[in-house]
């Protein structure tokens, strides 16, 4: 990494320290709690899958059965009942799933010997986590085999037809055009479903349902292109919303490579309860960490809802918090794709210099992190010609500051979901610029008292001031008072609060225990 902005190291350290102090009390709360989706994610890791005739997934059925028997039993964890049913019925997980989908109630069986349950559970932990470990090894092998074949930064493209089979065509074409990462954007409002739909889907609004079968279908298609192109094509989805950890579990089992996953996005932008979100994000991140999945955080959203120039410090503050919550869940820096965006009003004088300053600042403060850089969207209009130029400026900044993951802007942003040719034009544009300025990053320095350097210092100072304020009142209160993104979220408000579970003294979750142990989380 090249130092160009001369940011004082002690100030950066201080900002990190503040973020750590802000996250710590939240961490204590998280560790005392589970949630319905954490329990369902655990069931999924153990092999619970399928759905009943009404489309209610088996993991939901099991949690609902425990809750219906006695809500107080949730505090012991739900996996114990599933394992108990496996032992008592002598069935395989697949057979038991089918039986549950047909109406069998796991609570109809008395709880058997604890040591037998523990032994059986350990067997399933070894199986479930073993499969994830194999996936990780396979990815590492392919990345090694096709070493140096990916673009730098990684070119990231979105498909969003609503139909997984149509998505496959678009994704294959996008990968062949040069994309390194394919994200299948989710159908509108999936984030607010407190279950994950089952099976392959062909209907969605503005995107495609995230289901395990859809993950499998897309993974197989991209593996095919990987071999043809001799370039490992990564697959991305969204471990966000009310089912964060379940989607992380599904992604880990089906070898996704990246997950959109933010510690506060759901609270601020989807009105999901804050306690629920903090609990869910940690378990989801532990799974992502174990699976070697790079998370992408959602700081770009701060800039699309507020002014990108004035609120630049909220991005850095959020990145620092996401980093701490990531560390707490066992994610190393190289899996932390912290987000930021090129969203300033194009009419601002010297806007390009400010964007360059902020992107370089992120690079220097997070040297090992694969930063996820997002393209202009807010000021994209129907003028596709202007839009293409704005995307070009964005491409330039990204390469010139050595970003990690580059989400390609579409010239038709704000008009329609991308046409196949829109993606081609985007890749072509990025490849031209990035090849043309290949060594710009290594070759260029900034004037010590110039606009770029001064801007970065200013943003860091504002970030510290902001974090001091948050630290003084605590994160929960800060969110309640609207310090982030100008939205106020009451502590007990928002969606999913009723799904929060206080862990009891007998809480049983060997998956969590094993993950913590292997990830070295205290």
């Amino acid at each position, binding site marked *: 990494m090249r130092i160009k902005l001369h940011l004082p190291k002690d100030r950066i350290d201080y900002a990190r320290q503040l973020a750590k102090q802000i996250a710590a009390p939240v961490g204590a709360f998280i560790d005392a709690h589970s949630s319905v989706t954490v329990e369902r994610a655990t069931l999924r890791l153990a092999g619970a899958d399928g759905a009943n005739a009404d489309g209610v997934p088996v993991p939901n059925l099991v949690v609902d059965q425990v809750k219906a028997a006695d809500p107080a039993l949730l505090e012991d964890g739900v996996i114990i009942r599933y394992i108990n049913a496996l032992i008592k019925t002598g069935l395989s997980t697949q057979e038991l799933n089918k039986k549950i989908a047909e109406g069998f109630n796991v609570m109809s069986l008395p709880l058997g010997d604890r040591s037998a349950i523990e032994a059986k559970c350990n067997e399933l932990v070894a199986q479930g986590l073993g499969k994830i470990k194999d996936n990780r090894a396979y990815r590492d092998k392919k990345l090694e085999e096709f070493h140096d074949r990916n673009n730098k930064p990684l070119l990231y493209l979105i498909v969003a037809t*609503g139909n997984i089979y149509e998505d496959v065509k678009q994704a294959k074409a996008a990968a062949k*055009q040069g994309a390194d990462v394919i994200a299948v954007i989710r159908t509108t409002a999936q984030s607010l479903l407190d279950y994950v739909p089952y099976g392959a889907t062909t209907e969605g609004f503005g995107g495609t349902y995230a289901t395990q079968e859809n993950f499998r279908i897309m993974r197989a298609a991209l593996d095919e292109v990987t071999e043809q192109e001799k370039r490992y094509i990564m697959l991305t989805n969204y471990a966000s919303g009310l089912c964060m950890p379940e989607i992380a579990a599904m992604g880990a089992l089906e070898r996704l490579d990246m997950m959109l996953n933010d510690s506060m996005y759901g609270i601020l932008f989807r009105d999901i309860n804050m306690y629920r979100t903090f609990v869910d994000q940690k378990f989801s991140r532990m799974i992502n960490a174990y699976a070697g999945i790079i998370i992408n955080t959602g700081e770009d959203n701060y800039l699309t809802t507020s002014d990108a120039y004035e609120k630049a410090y909220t991005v850095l503050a959020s990145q620092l918090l996401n980093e701490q919550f990531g560390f707490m869940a066992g994610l190393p820096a190289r899996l932390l794709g912290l987000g930021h965006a090129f969203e300033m009003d194009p009419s601002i004088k010297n806007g390009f210099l400010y964007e360059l300053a902020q992107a370089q600042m992120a690079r220097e403060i997070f040297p090992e992190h694969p930063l996820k850089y997002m393209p202009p969207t807010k000021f994209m209009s129907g003028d596709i010609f202007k839009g293409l130029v704005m995307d070009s400026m964005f491409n330039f900044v990204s390469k010139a500051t050595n970003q990690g993951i580059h989400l390609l802007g579409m010239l038709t942003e704000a008009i329609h*979901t991308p*046409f*196949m*040719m829109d993606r081609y034009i985007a890749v*072509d544009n990025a490849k031209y610029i990035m090849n043309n300025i290949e060594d710009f990053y290594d070759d260029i320095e900034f004037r010590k008292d110039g606009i770029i350097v001064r801007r970065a210092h200013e943003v860091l100072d504002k970030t510290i001031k902001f974090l001091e304020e948050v630290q003084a009142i605590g994160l929960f209160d800060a969110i309640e008072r609207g310090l982030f993104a100008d939205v106020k979220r009451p502590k007990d408000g928002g969606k999913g609060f009723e799904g929060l579970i206080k862990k009891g003294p007998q809480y049983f979750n060997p998956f969590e225990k094993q993950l913590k142990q292997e990830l070295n989380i205290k």
Partner: protein
Amino acid sequence: MKLIRTYGDTLDDGKVQLSFTLPVPDGARGREAARKLVLAWGFKECEVVHSAPLSEEFSFYVVYGKSETAIDFDTVEADEIDKDASMSMDEVNEFIRQHIKRKVVVVGACTGFDAHTVGIDAIMNMKGYNHHYGLERYPEIEAYNLGAQVPNEKLIDFAVKVKADAILVSQVVTQKDTHIHNMTEFIELLEAKNLRDRFICIAGGPRIGNKLAVELGFDAGFGRGTYADDVATFIVKKLVEKAQAS
């Protein structure tokens, strides 16, 4: 009668720039297919100036065509609220002080499953968009932005609670006509509750036209390029008009 054709660099040359994708491989046959297709659309000349493969099965074309088709400009009517007459923020506030003499209450939301706040934020948030302040900044307007994914029912309940004068419904996602479904449901709910006449109802979104909105029972629809001033002007003038009518 005023006949018009597209303009390249000479009046009535009828030049048109096109780009599209075909589900065939790139190559001489693909280019010829593109040319024939453009001619089949009625263009008199066609030049394929660029082609490129998008994958093994798809190809991309940039094409110039010449069209002799003309229309009579005098017969053209626009499906847009006339925004040229919109007052500025200060003028709107002054208009309210003079003619309405109380604060105007506006409630807005992006309804249904639509998660995009960008449209409603551009109109309502303090900051506004493109140097046009949003309604929250208007001293004479009390603005409530309920955000995205708000059920129609909840939006109406809230509007009743705060005694709103106007309700803004934003719809960005139009895939599978969800916006039409949402907008229809909104009006039907209002009518079922016998509340339709109580509010000025305005729809907005990049693909919302005034004609469509009025057809669905709204007072107006605002599309791309609309700012808070345009919406505010419509609301205050309509309020005065309603007061005079009653």
